[in-house]
């Protein structure tokens, strides 16, 4: 198994980031490394608070100014450092080259403006189209999202649409300027299960047909496994494991990944009770030394008091667990 060979669109190296609060700095990211190549669908999985969204919002610099501070490592988005871009340069990257679909479709559209105006505004911001051309482009995009009467939807206000419909509008908006990369931040979490499959299908189909790379953020291993070529498992602001979806699911290397998979009906081994992971995420205000999963890990031993590096255990497969690293070295 080799790494996909497209251009690297996003490369995050050893990124550490903290939120400064009155109680002290919260170390949200502790050396996250990941990359996304053109045309691939990459999943980022982990439980709430593990740093999935923060990583991607740091990459597009959407984190609230003043609160988040990068304390180490670097980001390269389309070959340049987003932290060094001016606000203006950044505006031409956002929406045009990378766009984001957020979790909450209910509030992600401006309640006082018509759907059509909002899509057309984004299109005309980045493309030289007149109003009529942009409007017809918007209606085509909505049709691609299997919306049968795009003209009627474009005249509507967000409150007149269901959550699933709004999310389709937001996906259409995200694809409207043919970006090279789309960040889908839990796009189906707030939706009915029945709508989830449709939305996932729409994203996957549109991305594959346009060759757009997607970073798919989710806490749901089952969803990620359906959609993604590769995945990163994040735990407490660190990458626990990375590899192709098939290889990770077939033989999860990190105890945390294994536990995540065993939690899920469908992915868990048949005829066994589903597991739950004991304990909670460590306090990131005052993280314990060593492997951050240690307190919840069944396999933890003396080695785990020092931080395991994210080491290659197979080609295109990395894990941050001393046990796996030793097994690899032994083999």
């Amino acid at each position, binding site marked *: 198994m080799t790494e996909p060979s497209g251009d690297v669109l996003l490369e995050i190296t050893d990124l550490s980031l903290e939120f400064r609060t009155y109680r002290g700095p919260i170390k949200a990211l502790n050396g996250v490394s990941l990359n996304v190549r053109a045309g691939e669908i990459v999943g980022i999985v982990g439980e709430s608070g593990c740093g999935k969204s923060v990583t991607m919002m740091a990459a597009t610099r*959407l984190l609230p100014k003043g609160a988040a501070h990068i304390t180490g490592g670097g980001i390269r988005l389309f070959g340049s450092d987003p932290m060094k871009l001016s606000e203006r340069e*950044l*505006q031409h990257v*956002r*929406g045009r080259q990378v*766009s984001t679909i957020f979790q909450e479709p209910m509030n992600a*559209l401006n309640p*006082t403006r018509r759907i059509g105006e909002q899509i057309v505004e*984004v299109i005309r911001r980045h493309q030289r189209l007149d109003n009529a051309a942009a409007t017809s482009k918007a209606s085509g995009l909505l049709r691609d999202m299997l919306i049968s009467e795009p003209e009627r939807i474009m005249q509507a206000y967000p409150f007149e649409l269901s959550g699933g419909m709004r999310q389709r509008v937001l996906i259409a908006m995200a694809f409207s300027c043919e970006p090279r990369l789309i960040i889908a931040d839990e796009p189906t979490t707030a939706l009915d299960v029945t709508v989830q499959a449709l939305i996932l299908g729409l994203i996957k189909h549109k991305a594959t047909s346009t060759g757009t790379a997607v970073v798919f953020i989710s806490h749901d291993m089952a969803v990620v496994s359906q959609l993604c070529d590769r995945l990163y498992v994040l735990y407490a602001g660190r990458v626990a494991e990375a590899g192709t979806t098939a290889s990770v699911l077939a033989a999860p290397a990190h105890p945390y990944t294994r536990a995540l998979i065993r939690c899920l009906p469908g992915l868990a081994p048949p005829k066994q009770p589903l597991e739950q992971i004991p304990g909670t995420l460590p306090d990131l205000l005052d993280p314990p030394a060593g492997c951050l999963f240690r307190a919840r890990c069944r396999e933890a031993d003396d080695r785990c008091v020092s931080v395991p590096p994210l080491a290659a255990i197979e080609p295109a497969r990395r894990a941050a667990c001393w046990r796996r690293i030793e097994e690899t070295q032994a083999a």
Partner: protein
Amino acid sequence: MSLISTILRRLVLLVFVVAGVAIITFTISHLIPGDPAQLIAGDKASAQTLAHVRQELGLDKPVTQQFVIYVKQLLSGDLGQSLRTRRPVAGDIALFLPATLELGIAALVMAIMIGVPLGVLSAIYKDGPVDQAARVVSVAGISMPVFWFGLALILLFYVKIPILPGSGRITLGIAAPPRITGFFLVDSLVAGDLKAFWSSLYHLILPAFVLAFANLGIITRQIRASMLDVLQEDYVRTARANGLSRSAVILRHALPNALIPSVTLLGLAFGDLLYGAVLTETIFAWPGMGSYVVSSIQTLDFPAIMGFTIVASLGYVLINLAVDLTYMVLDPQIRELG
């Protein structure tokens, strides 16, 4: 609910409000101790003269009968005759009200034009120098009494640095424009009299600013608070994530939504301005409703007081209607769902 049905429904309600106000003001003004006939006829009038005056004014009739007469007159649009000026109250109000409205509207426009941008800037640059300065201005505006601030400004800009007039609506010697609306600014423009227009404008600056200043602070704080709320909203993040310019994010996405909760406040502010006008008019010798009402109260001029109260409450109801209609324009959810 459509715009028209809202308006109609409110106009029906208006009748009840006015009826209630008429009953209350009539009752209160007749419970106040004091004899208007005595005030008109003077201290030394004979009992006969007093009786004559009472009869002439209808004050000798039983109170209930006086009320019936008053309501009958009201229904025909007649607010009665002022005991003091001996002119119809409706005519007096028509004469003095435009001056007050002109002052109030000018003050409201000023308060909005300064308060809204200041509030927006304070929210965007939260805790920055602009925000701190705006906070000082707001607290000063809210806490400084109109009579003190008005006199201070007159002292500064009329006495020490004489660049602005300190009293009246127009320079002595310049003829007031022919009366059409009663608004000097409008009438002088209609008449093409630029000299009168500029003179009226200069006279308006100080009193309007004094009146605006108190509400300026409230408007600034409200806009700042609702902007801070709206800037946290997901749709503002969507707009930023889509690479919209800073000005588009703020002016097209954040501000219109931040204005919605402020509309009520603007309606209340306008009511406040008309009420605050009483003091301001006194300080700046502005010939408006304020001075008229004060004189009417001093002479127990019941018809004038009641007439003014009814017109004022009518104004309040209409302002509230305007507020609701503005909501419908700004917020599609209210417009389409009602």
